[in-house]
């Protein structure tokens, strides 16, 4: 049970760190870190496939996109970074305070989960659900990927 607590706390800490750090590159790395912790939690909640997807897509792909974006945009010189750090801190010191308070408050709240559910349907395998039961979502994903492709083409092809 304690492992869960540690994971939970580290997840929140990683997220807070991503937001608080001054340099953009560090926050992207922080993002990747949160994504890894999330993957571990997912494994704990015995949903491995989702965890793998999370790891490869979020930690990998999205971090790559962000890093390429940062590299394209102009980099901050060192003293600009230092100035930004002080200015960032003046705005973001509030975040950890809120998080702690919220955590304590939420801890007190206990809502009964007395939902009586029917038994889970028989062939409840992920592959089966995606490929056989939810074709509509499949089409949706295909179309949205096409949309993404057309978007990037439209935005950058001149």
């Amino acid at each position, binding site marked *: 049970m304690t492992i869960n607590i540690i994971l939970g706390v580290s997840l929140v800490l990683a997220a807070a760190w991503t937001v608080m750090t001054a340099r953009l590159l560090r926050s992207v790395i922080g993002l990747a870190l949160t994504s890894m912790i999330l993957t571990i939690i997912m494994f704990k909640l015995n949903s491995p496939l989702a965890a793998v997807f999370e790891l490869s897509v979020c930690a990998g792909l999205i971090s790559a996109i962000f890093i390429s974006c940062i590299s394209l945009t102009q980099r901050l010189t060192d003293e600009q970074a230092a100035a930004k750090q002080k200015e960032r801190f003046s705005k973001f010191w509030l975040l950890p305070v809120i998080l702690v308070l919220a955590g304590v408050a939420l801890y007190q709240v206990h*809502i*009964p*989960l007395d*939902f009586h*559910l*029917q038994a*889970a349907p028989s062939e409840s395998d992920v592959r089966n659900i995606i490929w*056989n*039961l*939810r*074709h*509509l*979502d499949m*089409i*949706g*994903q*295909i*179309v*949205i990927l*096409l*949309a*993404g492709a*057309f*978007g990037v*083409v*439209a*935005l950058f*092809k001149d």
Partner: protein
Amino acid sequence: MLSPLLLLPLLAIIILNLPIRSLTQKLSVWVGIGLSLWQIVAVVLLAMGHESADAWGKYFTLGLSCDNLTLVLLMSIGIVTLATILVGWQTIGGEKQRFGFMNLVFVAMIGMNGTVMLADLFSLYIFIEVTAVASFILIAFQRNTNALEGAFKYIILSATATVMMLLSISIILLVVGDTSFAAAGSAVKQSQGNPLVIVAIGLFICGLLIKGGVVPFHGWLPAAYSAAPAAASVLLAGIATKTSGIYALIRLTTSVFANNESVNSILLLAGTISILVGAFAAIGQSDFKKMLAYSSISQVGYIILALGCGTNLAIIGAVFHLFNHSIFKSLLFVNSAAVETQSGTTDMNKLGGLGTKMPVTNATSLIAFLSTAGVPPLAGFWSKLIIIIALWQNNLHTYATIAVLASVLTLAYLLLMQRKVFFGKVAEGLGNVKEAGWGITTAASILAAITVGVGVTFPWMFNSVLMPISSFLK
């Protein structure tokens, strides 16, 4: 008959993007027009009631359902996409640009058709996201700073909306274990008291209100509509936000969160506020498209108000007003496209007296503005009348009076627009302005013909077409 509505555009995208680029690019516009016309014909056939065998059905289990509400939405999607394609063809220069635009329109078409026909909460989220992505890019299509700003704002706010929707879907999953409308509806009804369920309902409604552009959540709408290119703003204002926002709200408030009192009072309040804020903001605008954006917030307010009232007649009024609004709002945006292409600007202070120079645009904008203000012979009046009657019968007298008197405000800012753009003396720089191209004028006249047709034939249509719409309500 339903799945082709979804799959044909997909097929079209795939075929058009095959490597033989030179041929397909010219074809894309005609394919687009063909598809939208086919959709309109299909809806009419469906309405006539012959359910042809769903050839594609056996391969896919899409779980699409279609009742009268979906038919109305499908019809307006067909019409508005046709108008968008015609305007796009006219306003977007360059072969490649136009091809890119057509692809996005096809994606949006699939997204909207899907949203309208599905019966599962999560697929609702997916297809709303599809339409949203298509709209992001359509807004940012011309890559000028304003367009990018509008797109970015829309992304941020649509992301918050999706976060809220997903949280509420997960809570419903917690409660029910299945995300289909029917299951969700029964579960919500049983565990009414549980605070988690209340949070779920609240979050989902707010997500949809953001998508629909109702007042407290409408920040992105003026930026997105006014910055988008002419054709994109027609699609967006006409139908995109309505399907993803308002249609979903109608579907859910009638089936999933079936008429509990508090949801209705929230909708009534939100509707009235958005009518007033939209109208007052529109009065002060000096940019033609921004004024139309605020005007569409105000008109959506009427639909939300009718939804809040909840009775059968009110829902019919809401659906009818949704259909009418999609027609005359896209007509107004088509007119703004015409004015923009011919005079180069949409700043009303620089425009003037285009009435004599652009007769068709003048006549159609007259029809559209009278219909928006709810002046009788046209369609807008009848839908507003039904909403007012429904409100009055529910003794919601204050809301009804505010809604009615707001149409004076609507008339005020539209008269302002007419005076500054069409009705006055010709502005100095616009001496040699000619009428807009044939694409825009045909789109405008089709939409105007529909508005006038619906308006004039309404009494005859009242029993045969309008009343059956309420069949989708239990």
